[in-house]
């Protein structure tokens, strides 16, 4: 049942700052690049010291597939600095190697029976959805009736990414910012409520990644509108492959591991903690 996990010393092709204080990390790792699907993640050892001790999980933003002998498969990670681990990662220079584990977890299930795919990204959550949009647009090439709608929400204009890239893939894109500096002023979930009537009579599937508050609001909207929603959760993790039992989340079917049973879950199954 458990599929193959690779532990590889991946060469850093590039690691650079983009706008909004975010970074892109590109790693040469053909085995993982060939197998990983949208929503799955890799677990990266930031350095070979004992502090910080644990690996850090990152979903894959894009895959550059194996093309012959000299063009090795690569993965691209989009990340933000939130603490010491990501700070250290941002300073690792190209040509160095990073010890990575992957592909890990269960990714998004692409519902080819759905005619409308609604992708919802909150902040950094855009990271795995770009990869998903690429796969969805491939499916759309075969079945042009399919629609891909992407909602991106962030605090402010500077923190909106990938708008052009999503457009290039033929996605219908909607922006929202908390401060109104770009697109709809307000939460991405408010914009979703506003546009949902447009898709009322179509079979739709929601795919989302963002902060917990967004997932909670979204789960409610999905339930009220009777739409299926898949969400990608984030928790602290130790091992990342299902042995330490540390990254538990509560679901209607009992405790599940975010690393192994997730990180993508059906929004309806999550039992949110009280606070």
């Amino acid at each position: 049942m458990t599929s193959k996990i690779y532990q590889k010393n991946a060469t850093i092709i590039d690691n650079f700052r983009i706008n909004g204080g975010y970074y892109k990390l590109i790693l040469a790792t053909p085995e993982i690049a060939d197998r990983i699907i949208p929503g799955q993640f890799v677990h990266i050892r930031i350095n070979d010291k004992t502090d910080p001790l644990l690996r850090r999980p990152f979903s894959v933003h894009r895959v550059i597939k194996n093309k012959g002998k000299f063009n090795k498969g690569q993965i691209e990670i989009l990340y933000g600095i939130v603490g010491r681990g990501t700070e250290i990662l941002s300073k690792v220079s190209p040509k160095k190697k990073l010890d990575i584990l992957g592909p890990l977890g269960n990714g998004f299930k692409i519902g080819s029976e759905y005619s409308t795919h609604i992708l919802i990204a909150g902040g950094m959550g855009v990271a795995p959805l770009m990869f998903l949009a690429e796969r969805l647009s491939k499916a759309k090439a075969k079945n042009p009736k399919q629609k891909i709608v992407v909602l991106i929400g962030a605090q402010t204009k500077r923190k909106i990414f990938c708008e052009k890239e999503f457009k290039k893939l033929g996605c219908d894109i909607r922006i929202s910012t908390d401060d109104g500096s770009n697109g709809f002023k307000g939460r991405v979930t408010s914009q979703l409520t506003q546009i949902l009537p447009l898709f009322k009579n179509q079979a739709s599937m929601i795919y989302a990644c963002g902060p917990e508050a967004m997932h909670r609001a979204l789960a409610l909207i999905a339930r009220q509108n009777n739409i299926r929603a898949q969400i990608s959760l984030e928790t602290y993790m130790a091992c990342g492959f299902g042995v330490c039992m540390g990254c538990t989340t509560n679901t209607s079917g009992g405790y599940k591991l975010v690393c192994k049973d997730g990180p993508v879950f059906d929004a309806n199954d999550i039992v949110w903690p009280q606070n």
Partner: protein
Amino acid sequence: MNTAISLGTLRLKNPVLVASGTFGYAEEFKNLIKVERLGALVTKTITLCPRQGNLPPRIAETPSGMLNSIGLENKGLDNFIKEKLPHLKKLDTPIVVSIAGESLNEYAELAKKLSLKGISALELNLSCPNIKAAKIKNQRGTLISQDASATYKVIKAVRRSTKKTIIAKLTPNVGDISLIARAAEDAGADSISLVNTFLAMSIDIKSKKPKLANITGGLSGPAIKPIALRMVWEVARAVKIPVVGCGGIMTASDAIEFIIAGARAVQIGTANFVNPKAATDIILGIKDYMRINKITNINKLIGSLKV
């Protein structure tokens, strides 16, 4: 070069085991490392009945360490025998099953029901700091291996119910570890393993909340190594039965320190999360050390501390 050692009647091809709760039931590791290279593997602790475990968050990173309060989540004895054991038996490495009971009778029952072919030894988890195991003493909050007489009684009861090699795993959260170790030896344990995790905590100063839902948890990893080493050294001097050292071992040189201090074998825990190849790398590293230092038999290294 001879790296074989024995614990009770159990013979191991090398002295490196993987610690309970850090290797699952080997399924996930099977496609990452050659499991058959391990001296032995210790399963996640199993209990008689299924346990849901503690509320999340269950882990937090600390300087060179981590806290956990998993709460012995496991699917229980029957599920283990039906679902996990058949595939564990197929591995070409000795299987040590870790057990924990909520009462003396539960320990005895677990030991009896696990006296099965394909299981090489039982490790008694007498030290999990996260469950209230004190029914035996009717004292809330005490752990069995914080009390010499409770330790003695549990091991004695297990000794009566099985012929398997018994490894008693002790908590380090005590004043005098030698006292507990001697009680375990007197009760008939074949070996003692230590340490389990140190009771500890961590606070998020923004929210003023503890980082673990359980408030406290067990500290493991490199941060505990010097304390674990000291305790292993103390116990190795206090008892005649073999000692299995554990606590913060990340590299072969860490493992060799424990062996020099008197450990006949070592267990690798948290390191498995950081580097799934840690245990197999450590085996190679110990062999390199022996080669370089012209040690032909690992038994010559055990307890070779010069003082």
